[in-house]
């Protein structure tokens, strides 16, 4: 048996042992002696998932093209790190990655569960069982029949050959996998009717989920920004939405748990949110991988194999119906405690914030599901434009930012004195107002575009940044462990401020460059300086060299946007284009070939048939008699928009026509169509103003098909102000999340060391807890 066959077998073993673990953990909830057996079964499932993933990685690293998956996503010429990342580049590999993380996170989880272990792990193992079962139906270990083994693989999609993309899936899948943790704990809590005990255990894991999912989203966005060339980092794409929605729900849950811990309350909504995260991601998985959207859009994954898809649907239904059903069944017995005691209280701010987050998640979900919803309701599929997400979510984003700015000055319960509150809040409030006035003033005098909504968003974001930054500053010395939340909020404000500014104040110029022509863009003189590897034509790793010379006498630079043809499949050479990003502290200059990173470079081999002609002259070319009547000049003389046309009287087979081929300075040329087929063109660098002469180029005349030796490079440059705030903000968010996570794990560890919280723990050494002894179940 070779490694791939072992892999298939191990997946079956993993699915079986996860099912067994589910049953045994469930039994252990009633009879403790099953617990040890359940753990062994779970350990076997973990071993299987890890071993299967290890085998897939080793097959990818060894370029074993007998395996269909490896041949589809890898090739022998890739460097080792891209061979590694081809292990999760495909459908099957990404499911295995999901199962791998689920299995491993279970090991981290099981140590902290104590009396929650049997029920939580029963639910958790069942999710692992589903994932392994899906992999038996959609296996990454299928082999080619020996006669059909390809000599070389198809290679990794060139757009995925990027280090951000190499680390994005492993990160985000930790997040996806960890969504199962709050779900499992909440189910256990509902079954045990323990309305408060679960919060302490769930808290650090919820933050872990938030950080990893968030980091994954950010890495994906950064990858899109630097390689895709569409100019943005977020596109409200179905795949992005299917991760954003659970992340927002988890964000709400994280805040709800803080309220419950501090004030007692929100029992019902916290359980509900914990039960929603994982099913929402299952739904996203179904939407993006089922082909459900493919009916109405081409904007989705290839469909999963039928059996695997059935299992995804079964998984979605099981956990949605099971979780919500259990919640509804228990709803009457869950305590409902009023927490908010005053309008100016942190309790109320948190509750409102959670509602805002959940509403944003819901509206995003509705938008993303529109093709399916409209098909069901109106029998005609429709989808929403990106604008929908902005219009629908904006009011709630405003509310959220306002709350972010207020929270640092609110205390739990209510503020005793409104005057004190107003006094505390005045510094960031006035600072924001002054900044707002300055921006409004500058916008007015610089004639920048104005939109009330965007301005309002930026103002609120500034307020949120300032008030949280103030508190971070104060807390930094006193209790650095408690500033995680505020630091994250500074980050959120920065991300939204940067996103609004870089999108709304974006400026764009386009030009078409040819040999020896220049264009003016954002204070630079831009010219085409050939390819980086001219002798390889448009071969791999080629890039366009664009010279940017400053008009103000500053230092210039050379932009090298990637542009080549990927020829792994010689029948279908793929154009690969990536933008060049010129970084400045205050803005990014986003330089792409063509529009949105695509576009064409036309390379012309043959100058065509040339005919030098002076104004007033009449000459013959083939069947044409040409009289050069006059020049036609448009635009300002010597300006960027100047174009020169040559007005020609062309006689062809006794018929006279007037033709005007035009050369646009710095931009290219517009040929004129000849009667009888073909084109005639003039080029700006060949116009001789002193002699009043041009050179006419004739193309596509009988016996001649090629175009002239001119390269046309369409260049698009976008100036994105303040985009760096987005990246700075994301770093602060992750840093803040990391601090909060450390704090909550430390708290959990400490609380579990106290005898009251975990009665069966032996000793106080951390070592003693690494292997939870059987018999720690209790609780019944």
């Amino acid at each position, binding site marked *: 048996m070779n490694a791939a066959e072992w892999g298939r077998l191990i997946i079956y073993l993993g699915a079986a042992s996860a099912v067994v673990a589910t049953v045994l953990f469930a039994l252990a909830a009633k009879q403790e002696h099953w617990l040890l057996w359940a753990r062994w079964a779970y350990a076997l499932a973990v071993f299987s998932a890890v071993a299967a993933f290890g085998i897939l990685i080793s097959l990818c690293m060894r370029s074993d093209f007998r395996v269909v998956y490896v041949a589809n996503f890898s090739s022998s010429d890739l460097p080792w790190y891209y061979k590694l990342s081809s292990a999760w580049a495909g459908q099957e590999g990404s499911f295995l990655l999901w199962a791998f993380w689920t299995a491993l996170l279970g090991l981290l989880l099981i140590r902290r569960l104590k009396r929650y272990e049997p029920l939580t792990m029963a639910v958790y193992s069942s999710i692992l069982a589903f994932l392994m079962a899906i992999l038996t139906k959609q296996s990454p270990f299928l082999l080619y029949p020996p006669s059909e083994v390809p000599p070389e693989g198809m290679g990794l999609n060139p757009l995925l050959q990027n280090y951000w993309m190499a680390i994005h899936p492993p990160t985000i899948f930790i997040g996806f996998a960890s969504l199962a943790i709050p779900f499992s704990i909440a189910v256990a809590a509902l079954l045990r009717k323990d309305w408060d005990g679960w919060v302490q255990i769930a808290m650090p894991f919820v933050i872990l989920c938030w950080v990893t999912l968030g980091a994954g989203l950010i890495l994906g966005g950064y990858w899109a920004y630097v390689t895709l060339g569409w100019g943005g980092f977020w596109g409200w794409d179905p795949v992005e939405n299917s991760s954003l929605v659970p992340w927002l729900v988890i964000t709400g849950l994280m805040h709800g748990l803080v309220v419950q811990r501090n004030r007692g309350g929100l029992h019902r909504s916290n359980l509900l949110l914990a039960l929603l995260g994982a099913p929402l991601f299952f739904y996203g998985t179904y939407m993006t991988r089922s082909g459900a959207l493919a009916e*109405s859009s081409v904007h989705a994954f290839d469909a999963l194999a039928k059996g695997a898809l059935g299992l995804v649907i079964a998984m979605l239904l099981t956990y949605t119906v099971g979780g919500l059903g259990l919640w509804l069944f228990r709803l009457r017995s869950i305590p409902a405690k009023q927490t908010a005691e005053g309008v100016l209280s942190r309790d109320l701010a948190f509750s409102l914030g959670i509602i805002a987050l959940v509403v944003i998640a819901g509206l995003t979900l509705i938008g993303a599901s529109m093709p399916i919803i409209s098909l069901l309701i109106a029998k005609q599929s429709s989808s929403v434009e990106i604008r929908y997400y902005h219009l629908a979510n904006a009011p709630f984003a405003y509310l959220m930012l306002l709350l972010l700015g207020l929270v640092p000055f609110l205390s739990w319960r209510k503020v005793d004195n409104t005057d004190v509150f107003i006094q505390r809040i005045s510094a960031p409030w006035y600072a924001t107002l002054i900044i707002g006035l300055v921006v409004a003033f500058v916008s007015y005098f610089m004639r920048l575009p104005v939109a009330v909504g965007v301005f309002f968003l930026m103002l609120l974001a500034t307020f949120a940044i300032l008030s949280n930054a103030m508190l971070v500053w104060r807390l930094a010395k006193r209790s650095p462990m408690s500033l995680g939340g505020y630091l994250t909020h500074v980050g959120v404000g920065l991300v939204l401020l940067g996103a609004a500014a870089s999108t709304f104040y974006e400026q764009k110029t386009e030009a078409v460059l040819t040999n020896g022509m220049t264009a003016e863009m954002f204070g630079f003189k831009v010219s085409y300086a050939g390819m980086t590897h001219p002798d390889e034509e448009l071969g791999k790793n080629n890039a366009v060299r664009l010279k940017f010379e400053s008009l103000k006498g500053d230092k210039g630079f050379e932009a090298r946007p990637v542009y080549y043809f990927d020829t792994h499949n010689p029948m279908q050479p793929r154009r690969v284009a990536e933008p060049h990003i010129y970084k400045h502290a205050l803005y990014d200059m986003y330089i792409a070939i063509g529009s949105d990173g695509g576009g064409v470079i036309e390379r012309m081999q043959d100058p065509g048939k040339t005919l030098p002609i002076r104004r007033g002259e009449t000459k013959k070319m083939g069947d044409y008699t040409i009289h050069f009547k006059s020049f036609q000049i448009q635009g300002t003389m010597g300006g960027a928009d100047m174009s020169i046309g040559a007005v020609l009287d062309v006689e062809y087979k006794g018929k006279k026509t007037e033709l005007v081929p035009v050369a646009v300075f710095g931009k290219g040329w517009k040929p004129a169509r000849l009667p009888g087929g073909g084109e005639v063109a003039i080029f700006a660098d060949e116009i001789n103003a002193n002699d009043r002469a041009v050179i006419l180029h004739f193309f596509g005349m009988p016996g001649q098909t090629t175009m002239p030796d001119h390269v046309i490079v369409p260049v698009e440059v976008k100036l994105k102000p303040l985009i760096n705030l987005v990246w700075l903000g994301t770093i602060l968010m992750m840093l803040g999340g990391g601090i909060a996570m450390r704090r909550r794990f430390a708290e959990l560890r400490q609380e579990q060391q106290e005898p009251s919280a975990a009665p069966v723990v032996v000793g106080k050494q951390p070592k003693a807890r690494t292997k939870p002894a059987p018999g720690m179940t209790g609780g019944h």
Partner: protein
Amino acid sequence: MKKTYLFAMGFIVLGLFIAGRAMIQTIVPYVSVAQARQSSGKVQVKGKLVPGSLQMDAIQRETRFTIEDAKGDRLPVVHPKLAQGNVEQATEIVAIGQMQGDVFIAEKILYKCPSKYQGKQMQEYQESSQ
């Protein structure tokens, strides 16, 4: 208790109202070529690229092509920019825009290639918009 619920309900109603308004403004139905010719607003048309009809004009910054829908009706499309990626190999194109006379002006096009990469990214991000 009651108050909290009322409050939450109020929020949800407000949310649905705003979403409904946004939805009405931004929803774009998928239609056939025949329906597109009758339409006055923005629609999405899906069809196969008619072989040989694709023209990319670097000077005019335009992509022109003809699509054929499932019923065999053909529609000439002008996309007022250079399309991204491998549109020439597209098997299926979704054009989003409106009719202008006999021509469909597509402000955005999405297309699916007979991709050798069956993973997500290829098909997901092949789009070009104004």
